[in-house]
Protein backbone atom coordinates (compact mmCIF):
# COMPACT_ATOMS: atom_id res chain seq x y z
CA UNK A 1 0.00 0.00 0.00
CA UNK A 2 2.72 2.45 1.06
CA UNK A 3 4.68 1.80 -2.14
CA UNK A 4 1.60 2.50 -4.26
CA UNK A 5 0.96 5.79 -2.47
CA UNK A 6 4.61 6.82 -2.95
CA UNK A 7 4.28 5.77 -6.60
CA UNK A 8 1.27 8.08 -6.92
CA UNK A 9 3.20 10.85 -5.18
CA UNK A 10 6.14 10.53 -7.56
CA UNK A 11 3.78 10.25 -10.55
CA UNK A 12 2.22 13.54 -9.36
CA UNK A 13 5.69 15.09 -9.26
CA UNK A 14 6.34 13.98 -12.85
CA UNK A 15 2.99 15.40 -13.95
CA UNK A 16 3.79 18.63 -12.12
CA UNK A 17 7.19 18.96 -13.81
CA UNK A 18 5.79 18.08 -17.22
CA UNK A 19 2.90 20.56 -17.03
CA UNK A 20 4.82 23.34 -15.37
CA UNK A 21 7.76 22.79 -17.65
CA UNK A 22 5.59 24.14 -20.48
CA UNK A 23 5.07 27.38 -18.55
CA UNK A 24 8.75 27.69 -17.66
CA UNK A 25 9.80 27.13 -21.28
CA UNK A 26 7.23 29.66 -22.50
CA UNK A 27 8.35 32.19 -19.90
CA UNK A 28 11.98 32.02 -21.00
CA UNK A 29 11.13 31.94 -24.71
CA UNK A 30 9.09 35.13 -24.20
CA UNK A 31 12.24 36.97 -23.22
CA UNK A 32 13.52 36.84 -26.79
CA UNK A 33 10.20 36.98 -28.64
CA UNK A 34 8.90 40.28 -29.99
CA UNK A 35 6.18 39.26 -32.46
CA UNK A 36 2.84 39.92 -30.77
CA UNK A 37 1.04 36.96 -32.32
CA UNK A 38 3.78 34.55 -31.21
CA UNK A 39 3.78 36.09 -27.73
CA UNK A 40 0.02 35.51 -27.51
CA UNK A 41 0.50 31.89 -28.61
CA UNK A 42 3.21 31.25 -26.00
CA UNK A 43 1.05 32.72 -23.24
CA UNK A 44 -1.92 30.62 -24.34
CA UNK A 45 0.29 27.52 -24.33
CA UNK A 46 1.34 28.32 -20.77
CA UNK A 47 -2.26 28.89 -19.68
CA UNK A 48 -3.41 25.66 -21.31
CA UNK A 49 -0.96 23.66 -19.22
CA UNK A 50 -2.46 25.01 -15.99
CA UNK A 51 -5.27 22.46 -15.76
CA UNK A 52 -2.82 19.54 -15.82
CA UNK A 53 -0.54 21.47 -13.48
CA UNK A 54 -3.20 21.96 -10.79
CA UNK A 55 -4.45 18.37 -11.20
CA UNK A 56 -0.94 17.01 -10.67
CA UNK A 57 -0.48 19.22 -7.59
CA UNK A 58 -3.63 17.72 -6.07
CA UNK A 59 -2.29 14.21 -6.76
CA UNK A 60 1.22 14.85 -5.41
CA UNK A 61 0.00 16.71 -2.33
CA UNK A 62 -2.77 14.22 -1.55
CA UNK A 63 -0.53 11.19 -2.01
CA UNK A 64 2.28 12.86 -0.05
CA UNK A 65 0.02 13.60 2.91
CA UNK A 66 -1.40 10.04 2.90
CA UNK A 67 2.13 8.58 2.60
CA UNK A 68 3.11 10.68 5.61
CA UNK A 69 0.42 8.99 7.68
CA UNK A 70 1.10 5.46 6.43
CA UNK A 71 4.86 5.83 6.86
CA UNK A 72 4.41 7.57 10.20
CA UNK A 73 6.45 10.52 8.95
CA UNK A 74 4.39 13.28 10.52
CA UNK A 75 6.38 12.96 13.75
CA UNK A 76 9.45 14.09 11.76
CA UNK A 77 10.30 17.73 11.18
CA UNK A 78 11.41 17.40 7.55
CA UNK A 79 7.93 16.62 6.25
CA UNK A 80 6.43 19.64 8.02
CA UNK A 81 9.18 21.88 6.64
CA UNK A 82 8.66 20.42 3.16
CA UNK A 83 4.94 21.09 3.29
CA UNK A 84 5.45 24.59 4.68
CA UNK A 85 8.08 25.37 2.08
CA UNK A 86 5.82 24.08 -0.67
CA UNK A 87 3.02 26.40 0.48
CA UNK A 88 5.40 29.37 0.70
CA UNK A 89 6.75 28.67 -2.81
CA UNK A 90 3.25 28.27 -4.25
CA UNK A 91 2.09 31.44 -2.47
CA UNK A 92 4.95 33.52 -3.81
CA UNK A 93 5.11 32.00 -7.30
CA UNK A 94 1.47 32.72 -8.06
CA UNK A 95 1.62 36.53 -7.80
CA UNK A 96 5.13 36.64 -9.27
CA UNK A 97 4.36 34.57 -12.35
CA UNK A 98 0.67 35.22 -12.97
CA UNK A 99 1.13 38.98 -12.64
CA UNK A 100 3.96 38.86 -15.16
CA UNK A 101 1.98 36.80 -17.67
CA UNK A 102 -1.15 38.94 -17.18
CA UNK A 103 0.70 42.19 -17.87
CA UNK A 104 2.23 40.79 -21.06
CA UNK A 105 -1.07 39.27 -22.18
CA UNK A 106 -2.82 42.63 -21.83
CA UNK A 107 0.10 44.52 -23.40
CA UNK A 108 -0.04 42.52 -26.65
CA UNK A 109 -3.80 42.95 -27.05
CA UNK A 110 -5.22 45.23 -29.70
CA UNK A 111 -7.66 48.05 -29.00
CA UNK A 112 -11.03 48.13 -30.82
CA UNK A 113 -9.64 50.90 -33.05
CA UNK A 114 -6.82 48.60 -34.13
CA UNK A 115 -4.21 50.49 -32.12
CA UNK A 116 -1.95 48.37 -29.91
CA UNK A 117 -2.74 48.23 -26.21
CA UNK A 118 0.90 48.97 -25.33
CA UNK A 119 3.83 50.40 -27.25
CA UNK A 120 6.61 48.20 -28.62
CA UNK A 121 8.95 49.89 -26.15
CA UNK A 122 6.79 48.90 -23.18
CA UNK A 123 6.51 45.31 -24.40
CA UNK A 124 10.26 45.21 -24.87
CA UNK A 125 10.71 46.47 -21.32
CA UNK A 126 8.24 43.92 -19.92
CA UNK A 127 9.79 40.98 -21.74
CA UNK A 128 13.30 42.04 -20.86
CA UNK A 129 12.58 42.23 -17.13
CA UNK A 130 14.34 39.93 -14.70
CA UNK A 131 11.02 38.53 -13.39
CA UNK A 132 11.39 35.12 -15.13
CA UNK A 133 14.79 34.66 -13.49
CA UNK A 134 13.35 35.46 -10.09
CA UNK A 135 10.43 33.07 -10.65
CA UNK A 136 12.80 30.31 -11.75
CA UNK A 137 15.10 30.95 -8.81
CA UNK A 138 12.28 30.76 -6.26
CA UNK A 139 10.65 27.75 -7.91
CA UNK A 140 13.71 25.68 -8.76
CA UNK A 141 15.59 26.57 -5.58
CA UNK A 142 12.59 25.75 -3.43
CA UNK A 143 11.99 22.42 -5.12
CA UNK A 144 15.68 21.51 -4.70
CA UNK A 145 15.43 22.14 -0.96
CA UNK A 146 12.23 20.05 -0.75
CA UNK A 147 13.95 17.26 -2.70
CA UNK A 148 16.88 17.39 -0.28
CA UNK A 149 14.53 17.19 2.70
CA UNK A 150 12.63 14.25 1.26
CA UNK A 151 15.62 12.20 0.16
CA UNK A 152 17.96 12.80 3.09
CA UNK A 153 15.31 13.35 5.79
CA UNK A 154 17.79 15.33 7.90
CA UNK A 155 15.42 16.25 10.76
Amino acid at each position, binding site marked *: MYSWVVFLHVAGVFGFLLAHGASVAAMFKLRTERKRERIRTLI*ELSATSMTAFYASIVVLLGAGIVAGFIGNWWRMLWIWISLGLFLVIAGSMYPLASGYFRRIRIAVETRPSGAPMASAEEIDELLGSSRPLLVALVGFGGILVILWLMILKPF
Partner: protein
Amino acid sequence: MLLIATAYRDAADRAQEILATSARAARDSWPRVDVRAVRGEPAEAMVNLARDERADLLIVGNKGMTGRVAFLLGSVPDRISHSAPCDLLIVKTASDDAARHSETMYRRMLVATDASQTSLQAVRRAHGLGERTGAKPVLFYAGHPKTAEIVFNEVARAYLPAGMLQTASGRGDPADAICRFAQDEGYDLIVVGNRGMLDGRFRIGTIPNRVSHQARTDLLIVKTTSASIDELANGEGAVIRIGGESIAAYRDDSGTVHRLSARCAHMGCIVGWNADERTWDCPCHGSRYDALGTVIHGPATTGLAKPDEAQG
Protein backbone atom coordinates in the same frame (compact mmCIF):
# COMPACT_ATOMS: atom_id res chain seq x y z
CA MET B 1 -31.50 70.34 -6.62
CA LEU B 2 -29.35 69.71 -3.58
CA LEU B 3 -30.61 67.08 -1.16
CA ILE B 4 -28.78 67.12 2.18
CA ALA B 5 -29.19 63.82 3.94
CA THR B 6 -28.04 62.26 7.16
CA ALA B 7 -28.58 58.79 8.51
CA TYR B 8 -29.30 57.98 12.13
CA ARG B 9 -29.95 54.93 14.24
CA ASP B 10 -31.65 56.35 17.34
CA ALA B 11 -30.93 60.06 17.71
CA ALA B 12 -33.56 61.51 15.36
CA ASP B 13 -33.46 64.92 17.09
CA ARG B 14 -29.71 65.20 16.59
CA ALA B 15 -30.13 64.28 12.91
CA GLN B 16 -32.71 67.04 12.42
CA GLU B 17 -30.37 69.49 14.13
CA ILE B 18 -27.53 68.58 11.78
CA LEU B 19 -29.77 68.94 8.76
CA ALA B 20 -31.08 72.31 9.83
CA THR B 21 -27.57 73.67 10.32
CA SER B 22 -26.37 72.26 7.01
CA ALA B 23 -29.38 73.57 5.11
CA ARG B 24 -28.90 77.09 6.49
CA ALA B 25 -25.29 77.06 5.25
CA ALA B 26 -26.18 75.65 1.84
CA ARG B 27 -29.14 77.95 1.05
CA ASP B 28 -26.81 80.88 0.41
CA SER B 29 -25.35 79.20 -2.65
CA TRP B 30 -28.03 76.75 -3.82
CA PRO B 31 -31.36 77.83 -5.31
CA ARG B 32 -33.19 74.79 -4.00
CA VAL B 33 -32.21 72.78 -0.97
CA ASP B 34 -34.09 69.86 0.51
CA VAL B 35 -33.23 67.83 3.60
CA ARG B 36 -33.82 64.21 4.55
CA ALA B 37 -33.09 62.18 7.68
CA VAL B 38 -32.99 58.45 7.05
CA ARG B 39 -33.02 55.78 9.72
CA GLY B 40 -30.64 52.85 9.33
CA GLU B 41 -27.06 51.84 8.75
CA PRO B 42 -25.53 55.04 7.32
CA ALA B 43 -23.80 53.70 4.18
CA GLU B 44 -26.70 51.49 3.17
CA ALA B 45 -29.22 54.25 3.92
CA MET B 46 -27.34 56.79 1.80
CA VAL B 47 -26.91 54.40 -1.13
CA ASN B 48 -30.59 53.45 -1.03
CA LEU B 49 -31.64 57.09 -0.81
CA ALA B 50 -29.44 57.99 -3.79
CA ARG B 51 -30.96 55.11 -5.71
CA ASP B 52 -34.54 56.00 -4.77
CA GLU B 53 -34.00 59.68 -5.60
CA ARG B 54 -32.20 58.79 -8.84
CA ALA B 55 -29.36 61.07 -7.77
CA ASP B 56 -26.75 62.11 -10.34
CA LEU B 57 -24.09 62.72 -7.74
CA LEU B 58 -23.51 61.60 -4.18
CA ILE B 59 -21.17 63.75 -2.07
CA VAL B 60 -19.49 62.50 1.09
CA GLY B 61 -16.61 63.60 3.28
CA ASN B 62 -13.51 61.43 3.39
CA LYS B 63 -13.50 60.78 7.15
CA GLY B 64 -12.16 57.28 7.72
CA MET B 65 -10.80 56.80 4.21
CA THR B 66 -7.13 57.02 5.08
CA GLY B 67 -4.90 54.81 7.22
CA ARG B 68 -4.58 51.04 7.45
CA VAL B 69 -6.92 50.64 10.42
CA ALA B 70 -9.60 52.68 8.70
CA PHE B 71 -9.15 50.57 5.58
CA LEU B 72 -9.54 47.31 7.47
CA LEU B 73 -12.49 48.41 9.55
CA GLY B 74 -14.16 50.28 6.75
CA SER B 75 -15.89 53.63 7.00
CA VAL B 76 -19.15 55.07 5.77
CA PRO B 77 -17.63 56.80 2.72
CA ASP B 78 -15.59 53.68 1.95
CA ARG B 79 -18.65 51.45 2.02
CA ILE B 80 -20.61 53.97 -0.03
CA SER B 81 -17.80 54.08 -2.60
CA HIS B 82 -18.22 50.35 -3.21
CA SER B 83 -21.94 50.44 -3.89
CA ALA B 84 -22.77 53.96 -5.07
CA PRO B 85 -25.47 53.86 -7.74
CA CYS B 86 -24.24 57.14 -9.29
CA ASP B 87 -21.15 59.34 -9.49
CA LEU B 88 -19.51 59.84 -6.11
CA LEU B 89 -17.58 62.90 -4.97
CA ILE B 90 -15.38 62.25 -1.96
CA VAL B 91 -14.47 65.60 -0.47
CA LYS B 92 -11.25 65.89 1.44
CA THR B 93 -12.33 66.96 4.91
CA ALA B 94 -9.79 65.11 6.99
CA SER B 95 -6.54 66.56 5.71
CA ASP B 96 -4.62 69.68 6.60
CA ASP B 97 -5.35 70.96 3.12
CA ALA B 98 -9.12 70.77 3.62
CA ALA B 99 -9.48 74.33 4.93
CA ARG B 100 -7.48 75.68 2.00
CA HIS B 101 -9.83 74.05 -0.48
CA SER B 102 -13.07 74.63 1.38
CA GLU B 103 -14.10 77.90 -0.25
CA THR B 104 -12.72 77.47 -3.73
CA MET B 105 -14.08 76.12 -6.97
CA TYR B 106 -12.13 73.43 -8.71
CA ARG B 107 -9.37 74.92 -10.81
CA ARG B 108 -7.22 71.96 -11.73
CA MET B 109 -8.67 68.56 -12.52
CA LEU B 110 -6.63 65.44 -13.16
CA VAL B 111 -8.45 62.73 -15.10
CA ALA B 112 -6.93 59.26 -14.99
CA THR B 113 -7.47 57.31 -18.19
CA ASP B 114 -6.25 54.30 -20.10
CA ALA B 115 -8.53 55.07 -23.08
CA SER B 116 -10.82 52.14 -22.28
CA GLN B 117 -14.52 52.67 -22.92
CA THR B 118 -15.20 53.03 -19.22
CA SER B 119 -12.42 55.53 -18.63
CA LEU B 120 -13.63 57.57 -21.63
CA GLN B 121 -16.92 58.01 -19.78
CA ALA B 122 -14.95 59.52 -16.92
CA VAL B 123 -13.17 61.82 -19.38
CA ARG B 124 -16.51 63.01 -20.77
CA ARG B 125 -17.89 63.63 -17.28
CA ALA B 126 -14.77 65.56 -16.32
CA HIS B 127 -15.01 67.63 -19.47
CA GLY B 128 -18.65 68.48 -18.67
CA LEU B 129 -17.70 69.45 -15.13
CA GLY B 130 -14.83 71.53 -16.45
CA GLU B 131 -17.15 73.48 -18.74
CA ARG B 132 -19.31 74.44 -15.76
CA THR B 133 -16.50 75.25 -13.34
CA GLY B 134 -13.89 76.63 -15.69
CA ALA B 135 -11.41 73.92 -14.78
CA LYS B 136 -9.75 72.27 -17.75
CA PRO B 137 -9.28 68.55 -17.36
CA VAL B 138 -5.75 67.26 -17.74
CA LEU B 139 -5.56 63.63 -18.85
CA PHE B 140 -3.18 61.44 -16.95
CA TYR B 141 -1.90 58.02 -17.92
CA ALA B 142 0.18 55.99 -15.49
CA GLY B 143 2.59 53.82 -17.44
CA HIS B 144 5.18 53.81 -20.16
CA PRO B 145 5.51 57.21 -21.90
CA LYS B 146 5.31 55.64 -25.37
CA THR B 147 2.12 53.81 -24.43
CA ALA B 148 0.84 57.12 -23.05
CA GLU B 149 1.08 58.53 -26.59
CA ILE B 150 -1.13 55.70 -27.85
CA VAL B 151 -3.61 56.28 -25.02
CA PHE B 152 -3.88 60.03 -25.62
CA ASN B 153 -4.27 59.50 -29.37
CA GLU B 154 -7.09 57.06 -28.63
CA VAL B 155 -8.84 59.55 -26.36
CA ALA B 156 -8.40 62.28 -28.93
CA ARG B 157 -9.72 60.06 -31.71
CA ALA B 158 -12.71 58.96 -29.66
CA TYR B 159 -13.57 62.21 -28.03
CA LEU B 160 -11.72 65.44 -28.67
CA PRO B 161 -9.42 66.96 -31.26
CA ALA B 162 -5.90 66.27 -30.07
CA GLY B 163 -5.07 69.96 -29.77
CA MET B 164 -7.71 70.40 -27.08
CA LEU B 165 -6.17 67.87 -24.78
CA GLN B 166 -3.76 68.61 -22.00
CA THR B 167 -1.93 65.49 -21.03
CA ALA B 168 0.58 64.18 -18.55
CA SER B 169 1.95 60.80 -17.68
CA GLY B 170 3.92 59.22 -14.91
CA ARG B 171 5.55 55.90 -14.23
CA GLY B 172 5.26 53.44 -11.41
CA ASP B 173 2.32 51.89 -9.68
CA PRO B 174 -0.75 53.58 -11.28
CA ALA B 175 -2.55 54.57 -8.05
CA ASP B 176 0.66 55.91 -6.51
CA ALA B 177 1.55 57.76 -9.71
CA ILE B 178 -1.89 59.40 -9.96
CA CYS B 179 -1.95 60.52 -6.32
CA ARG B 180 1.67 61.66 -6.30
CA PHE B 181 1.29 63.68 -9.51
CA ALA B 182 -1.94 65.29 -8.29
CA GLN B 183 -0.31 66.30 -5.03
CA ASP B 184 2.98 67.48 -6.51
CA GLU B 185 1.28 69.55 -9.20
CA GLY B 186 -1.40 71.00 -6.94
CA TYR B 187 -4.55 69.53 -8.49
CA ASP B 188 -7.85 70.14 -6.70
CA LEU B 189 -9.68 67.12 -8.01
CA ILE B 190 -8.85 63.67 -9.30
CA VAL B 191 -11.37 61.99 -11.60
CA VAL B 192 -11.44 58.21 -12.10
CA GLY B 193 -13.96 55.66 -13.36
CA ASN B 194 -15.47 53.20 -10.89
CA ARG B 195 -14.34 50.04 -12.70
CA GLY B 196 -13.39 47.50 -10.05
CA MET B 197 -14.95 49.49 -7.19
CA LEU B 198 -18.11 47.38 -7.10
CA ASP B 199 -16.21 44.11 -6.68
CA GLY B 200 -15.87 44.62 -2.94
CA ARG B 201 -13.86 46.53 -0.36
CA PHE B 202 -11.01 44.07 -0.27
CA ARG B 203 -10.23 44.02 -3.98
CA ILE B 204 -7.31 46.21 -3.01
CA GLY B 205 -5.60 45.97 -6.37
CA THR B 206 -8.14 48.09 -8.22
CA ILE B 207 -6.82 51.52 -9.10
CA PRO B 208 -9.85 53.66 -8.13
CA ASN B 209 -10.08 51.88 -4.79
CA ARG B 210 -6.46 52.56 -3.99
CA VAL B 211 -6.73 56.16 -5.20
CA SER B 212 -9.77 56.63 -2.95
CA HIS B 213 -7.64 55.69 0.06
CA GLN B 214 -4.45 57.51 -0.94
CA ALA B 215 -5.62 60.73 -2.60
CA ARG B 216 -4.88 63.94 -0.76
CA THR B 217 -7.33 65.89 -2.90
CA ASP B 218 -11.03 65.61 -3.63
CA LEU B 219 -11.91 62.58 -5.74
CA LEU B 220 -14.73 62.14 -8.23
CA ILE B 221 -15.48 58.48 -8.93
CA VAL B 222 -17.55 58.41 -12.11
CA LYS B 223 -20.03 55.58 -12.40
CA THR B 224 -18.94 53.73 -15.50
CA THR B 225 -20.00 50.24 -14.43
CA SER B 226 -23.21 49.13 -12.76
CA ALA B 227 -23.97 47.51 -9.42
CA SER B 228 -27.31 45.93 -10.27
CA ILE B 229 -29.07 44.44 -13.27
CA ASP B 230 -31.61 47.28 -13.25
CA GLU B 231 -28.82 49.81 -13.71
CA LEU B 232 -27.32 48.10 -16.78
CA ALA B 233 -27.56 50.19 -19.92
CA ASN B 234 -28.15 48.55 -23.30
CA GLY B 235 -24.91 46.99 -24.50
CA GLU B 236 -23.45 46.96 -20.99
CA GLY B 237 -22.36 44.00 -18.91
CA ALA B 238 -21.28 43.66 -15.30
CA VAL B 239 -20.51 41.02 -12.72
CA ILE B 240 -23.21 41.32 -10.08
CA ARG B 241 -23.56 39.47 -6.78
CA ILE B 242 -26.96 37.84 -6.44
CA GLY B 243 -27.69 35.54 -3.52
CA GLY B 244 -24.00 34.96 -2.85
CA GLU B 245 -23.28 34.03 -6.46
CA SER B 246 -21.37 36.10 -9.03
CA ILE B 247 -23.53 36.58 -12.10
CA ALA B 248 -22.20 37.82 -15.43
CA ALA B 249 -25.16 39.93 -16.54
CA TYR B 250 -25.37 41.50 -19.98
CA ARG B 251 -28.15 43.69 -21.35
CA ASP B 252 -28.14 43.48 -25.15
CA ASP B 253 -29.01 46.31 -27.51
CA SER B 254 -32.69 45.33 -27.52
CA GLY B 255 -32.81 45.50 -23.70
CA THR B 256 -32.91 41.76 -23.03
CA VAL B 257 -30.84 40.72 -20.01
CA HIS B 258 -28.67 37.59 -20.30
CA ARG B 259 -27.48 36.01 -17.05
CA LEU B 260 -24.52 33.63 -16.86
CA SER B 261 -22.28 32.30 -14.15
CA ALA B 262 -19.26 34.61 -13.82
CA ARG B 263 -16.98 31.66 -13.08
CA CYS B 264 -14.52 30.95 -15.87
CA ALA B 265 -15.01 27.46 -17.31
CA HIS B 266 -11.23 26.92 -17.19
CA MET B 267 -10.22 27.26 -13.52
CA GLY B 268 -13.16 29.02 -11.92
CA CYS B 269 -11.78 32.57 -11.65
CA ILE B 270 -14.35 35.37 -11.83
CA VAL B 271 -14.46 36.94 -15.28
CA GLY B 272 -14.64 40.70 -15.86
CA TRP B 273 -16.62 42.73 -18.41
CA ASN B 274 -14.56 44.20 -21.23
CA ALA B 275 -16.59 47.19 -22.37
CA ASP B 276 -14.29 47.87 -25.32
CA GLU B 277 -14.87 44.53 -27.00
CA ARG B 278 -18.09 43.49 -25.25
CA THR B 279 -16.49 40.31 -24.01
CA TRP B 280 -16.10 38.55 -20.68
CA ASP B 281 -12.37 38.24 -19.98
CA CYS B 282 -10.81 36.00 -17.36
CA PRO B 283 -8.00 37.79 -15.50
CA CYS B 284 -6.29 34.55 -14.45
CA HIS B 285 -5.35 32.74 -17.65
CA GLY B 286 -6.79 34.89 -20.41
CA SER B 287 -9.87 32.95 -21.49
CA ARG B 288 -12.38 35.15 -23.30
CA TYR B 289 -16.08 34.74 -23.96
CA ASP B 290 -18.45 36.76 -26.11
CA ALA B 291 -21.23 38.72 -24.42
CA LEU B 292 -23.50 35.67 -24.47
CA GLY B 293 -20.87 33.44 -22.88
CA THR B 294 -19.58 31.52 -25.91
CA VAL B 295 -15.86 30.86 -25.62
CA ILE B 296 -13.83 32.82 -28.21
CA HIS B 297 -10.34 32.33 -26.80
CA GLY B 298 -8.75 29.58 -24.74
CA PRO B 299 -7.56 28.02 -22.57
CA ALA B 300 -11.25 27.51 -21.66
CA THR B 301 -12.89 25.06 -24.03
CA THR B 302 -16.51 25.52 -23.02
CA GLY B 303 -18.63 28.62 -22.57
CA LEU B 304 -19.83 30.27 -19.37
CA ALA B 305 -22.43 28.14 -17.62
CA LYS B 306 -25.98 29.20 -16.86
CA PRO B 307 -26.20 30.29 -13.20
CA ASP B 308 -28.27 27.25 -12.16
CA GLU B 309 -25.85 24.84 -13.92
CA ALA B 310 -22.90 26.41 -12.10
CA GLN B 311 -24.66 25.96 -8.76
CA GLY B 312 -25.60 22.37 -9.44
